[in-house]
């Protein structure tokens, strides 16, 4: 059964069906329909995990069909240990996005739901694509629904934020396109990503391609200093948009690093890994300070996302230093796996944090920290959950936030003490900005009448946040299944990456 195609096209067609149905049915039915589509998609994606063969790095569930023979472009899908968990994460998150928009979105419900469902299919397409044009098509097409979501259902400065978001990411990706075209001719007219991996390229070309990839993926991650679109987009986006941005879209950039940059231009990456490590460390340290001073909760979490994604890119690019030092990739495997765990974990945690802010925003219509205080008195259940997610965000052991960060820091020690030192600072800073926000928002005296009138979570909200809390806890206590899935692929990737392709 073409499982991957099903997971990609089911939500896209479901989204179109939702749009088509909107004329003939009520908004309530539309919501249930969207929820059903997203739930079925998640169920359909589960076999990807359960029938996955952990022992091999080869692509699985491969589908191949000729698409545009003139350019040798194929509809080529497949997953390995890196992309499979991210597909599940996407399918999982979309359910919460649909549920989170249940009551808040009253205007153009069908378009809202359809945008997220179509976006889900496209994001899964990015993770599953093994043909670079197919990858690029999904990668770009996904911007369209997001552009609409932020622009239509966003906050007061939504137009500025969404155009900035679109142009930033579009600017990044066009360089990717030129690089892919160059590789296409180098690979003897093939767009297959795996063919690119095997390609021998001279160092000068590698460096140019490296920068093309860097622009494309760094904007998406986003890395300092091209991160400025993210806080704007997050602040203005509706809750669902923020969740998808943080949980999935940022992962796409990181995914690009491991799928394209490291295996295709390993020598340039070897030469220039200091640049990425530097950018990552700046993100971890400097952005943490920026997060500390934010007045707006969503902005604070957005900056915290940038800092956490800094961990991911750091984890990826430690391999070259470690290999140079020890001559083995063993220490680096830990770093890359940590980074990948961090990606999944950050998907849960940041998604949950944005949902928490959304819960408060729906009641108070404010995201300013100063408007809150003593929320725990009126919303005890909510406060408990939000505190839990905040702790996870700060990397508390036992939560998923700890696992990835700890693995990356351990790995960083093998590369360079100062990398590890700076990276470890984030545990302190992360605790500082997250917990300080929590203190000001949740604890203390009841700040004003509005807070005094707050109602605690309803069943829907409790269900969403409760499930995410369970996911964070399970991944934190027992990350082994996830790491097992990745292990063979990561080993293979790193063995490949340390071999020169000149």
């Amino acid at each position, binding site marked *: 059964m073409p499982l991957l195609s099903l997971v990609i096209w089911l939500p896209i067609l479901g989204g179109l069906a939702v749009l088509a149905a909107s004329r003939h049915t009520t908004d309530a039915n539309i919501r249930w329909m969207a929820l059903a589509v997203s739930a079925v998609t998640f169920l359909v994606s589960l076999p990807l995990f359960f029938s996955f063969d952990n022992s091999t790095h080869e692509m699985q569930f491969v589908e191949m069909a000729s*698409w*545009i*023979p*003139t*350019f040798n472009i194929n509809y080529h899908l497949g997953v390995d240990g890196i992309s499979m968990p991210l597909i599940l994460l996407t399918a999982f998150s979309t359910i919460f996005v649909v549920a989170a928009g249940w009551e808040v979105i009253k205007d*153009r419900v069908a*378009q809202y739901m359809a945008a997220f469902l179509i976006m889900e299919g496209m994001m899964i397409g990015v993770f599953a694509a093994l043909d670079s*044009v197919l990858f*690029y*098509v999904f990668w*770009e*097409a996904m*911007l*369209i629904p997001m*552009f*609409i979501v932020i*622009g*239509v259902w966003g906050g007061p400065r*939504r*137009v500025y934020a*969404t*155009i900035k978001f*679109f*142009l930033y990411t*579009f*600017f990044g990706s*066009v*360089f990717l*396109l*030129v690089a892919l*075209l*160059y590789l*296409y*001719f180098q690979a003897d007219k093939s767009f297959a990503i795996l063919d690119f991996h095997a390609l021998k390229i001279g160092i000068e070309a590698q460096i140019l391609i490296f920068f093309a990839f860097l622009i494309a993926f760094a904007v998406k991650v986003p890395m300092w200093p091209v991160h400025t679109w993210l806080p704007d987009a997050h602040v203005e986006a509706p809750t669902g948009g923020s969740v998808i941005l943080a949980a999935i879209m940022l992962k796409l950039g990181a995914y690009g690093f491991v799928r394209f940059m490291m295996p295709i231009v390993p020598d340039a990456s070897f030469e220039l890994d200091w640049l990425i490590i530097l950018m990552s460390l700046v993100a971890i340290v400097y952005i943490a300070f920026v997060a500390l001073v934010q007045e707006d909760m969503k902005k604070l979490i957005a900056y915290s996302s940038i800092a956490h994604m800094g961990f991911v890119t750091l984890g990826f690019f430690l391999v070259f230093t470690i290999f140079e030092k020890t001559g083995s990739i063993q220490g680096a495997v830990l770093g890359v796996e940590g980074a990948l765990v961090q990606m999944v974990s950050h998907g849960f945690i940041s998604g949950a944090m944005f949902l928490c802010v959304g819960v408060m925003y729906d009641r108070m219509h404010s995201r300013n920290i100063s408007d809150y205080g003593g929320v725990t008195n009126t919303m005890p259940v909510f406060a408990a959950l939000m505190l839990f997610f905040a702790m996870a965000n700060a990397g508390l052991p036992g939560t998923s936030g700890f696992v990835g960060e700890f693995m990356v820091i351990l790995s960083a020690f093998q590369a360079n003490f100062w990398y590890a030192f700076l990276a470890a600072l984030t545990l302190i800073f992360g605790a500082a900005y997250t917990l300080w926000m929590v203190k000001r928002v949740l604890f203390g005296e009841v700040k004003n009448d509005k807070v005094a009138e707050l109602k605690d979570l309803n069943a829907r909200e409790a269900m969403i946040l409760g499930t995410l809390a369970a996911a964070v806890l399970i991944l934190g206590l027992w990350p082994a299944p996830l790491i097992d899935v990745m292990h063979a692929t990561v080993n293979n990737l790193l063995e490949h990456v340390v071999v020169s392709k000149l």
Partner: protein
Amino acid sequence: MAFEIPNFAPALPEIFVLTMICVVLVVDLFLTDKNRSITYLLSQATLLGAAVLSVIVQSSVPEYTFGGMFVNDGMGTVLKLFIYLSTAIVFIYSREYLIERGLFKGEYFVLALFAVLGMMVMVSANNLLVIYLGLEVLSLAMYAMVALNRDSDVASEAAMKYFVLGAIASGMLLYGMSMLYGATGSLDHTAIASFIQQGSSDDIVLKFALVFIIIGLAFKLGAVPFHMWVPDVYHGAPTAITLFITAAPKIAAFAMLMRLLVEGLGGLIDHWQDMLIILAVLSIIAGNVIAIAQTNIKRMLAYSTISHVGFLLLGIIAGTSSGYSAAMFYVIAYTLMSLAGFGMIILLSRNGFEADKLEDFKGLNQRSPWFAGMMLIVMFSMAGVPPTVGFYAKLAVLSAVVDTGLVWLAVLAVVFSVIGAFYYLRVIKYMYFDDAVDNTPISSAYDMRAVMSANGLLILFLGIYPTGLIALCTAVLA
């Protein structure tokens, strides 16, 4: 020298169209305004008949007739079919528009059909004079069409500008052709090509001729720095006429480029390549940057056309058969997009309201989600975002350019396409993010709505499955 009767068969579509123009002209004389749709239907029938004939007389190997002046080949057939198709769509889109403004006259259809005839002659020309003949038939018809609404000051001004600048361009082209004739002693493309092959390559007259010919071509295409007429004419002409000017004539201009530069002067590729690079770079930069400052959507789309011409030239610059087929794919994709874009303006307009300001698109998503969706597809396609046909068009020309080793040109083109994305996004912003100011229901004929939807969906469909069209373009230019 014995007189030989030429083989008329390859030129049957042209002969048919010419005959039908005369028929339409005469029939229209005897019609009252009430029965004017007979003229309309006859015109559509003419296009349909020409399409059928073109398919019947198509030939897989180039077929020459009239002493080698006229050629019937695969590229010609495909381009002609798209010329008929786009003209037929133009007729459907403009019918109501013209009726509402009292311009629904026989002249419009006769002139448009004359223009079609001119384009057909250009597409099939294998001789400098025949190219010029076709070009003038097309141009004269278009000058008159722009001035069709003679009570409008803007339209008359636009027509005047168009005529004067067009005449200068024709003069340049003709001057270049005369030099070419002086240097090679022939007007025949095939003979010119073989002369250049054998002759000394540093013939200064040839290069001079080339410069003038390229200037003439650039004028007709609207490439920077010979683009000044484009925004004024697009803006000044009634939208239905703009729609016509922007679509099919670009296909004919592409054919002219292919016939003159590639088939005739292919031996001078080293020289015209550099000139076209300058034109392409300037067009892409100026078109995209100036479009940002426009508040009138017709002017904005005019500048967008200029940048598309720049992209189209990229394919020719590559100088490979894959480049030419990429350019051909681009021009067809562009035609579909611009038809839909200008068609949407007509759809929103009504008597006394032109809907040609960007603000007029405000809140379209509330007024009509379906057509807002269609315009969304068109705008993203023009910006080159997948999954729309505009993406593959750009992909194809860029891949041809990268293949030639001009990676810097590809980088420059994509960077400016990002800048260009801004003004397309602004249209979407008006449609989706702003509230409607004008809540008049959108009323238009069913045929227009159906064709408009088909047009938009085709752009999307070709974005998901472009295989057939790409293969077609490659096959006829192989």
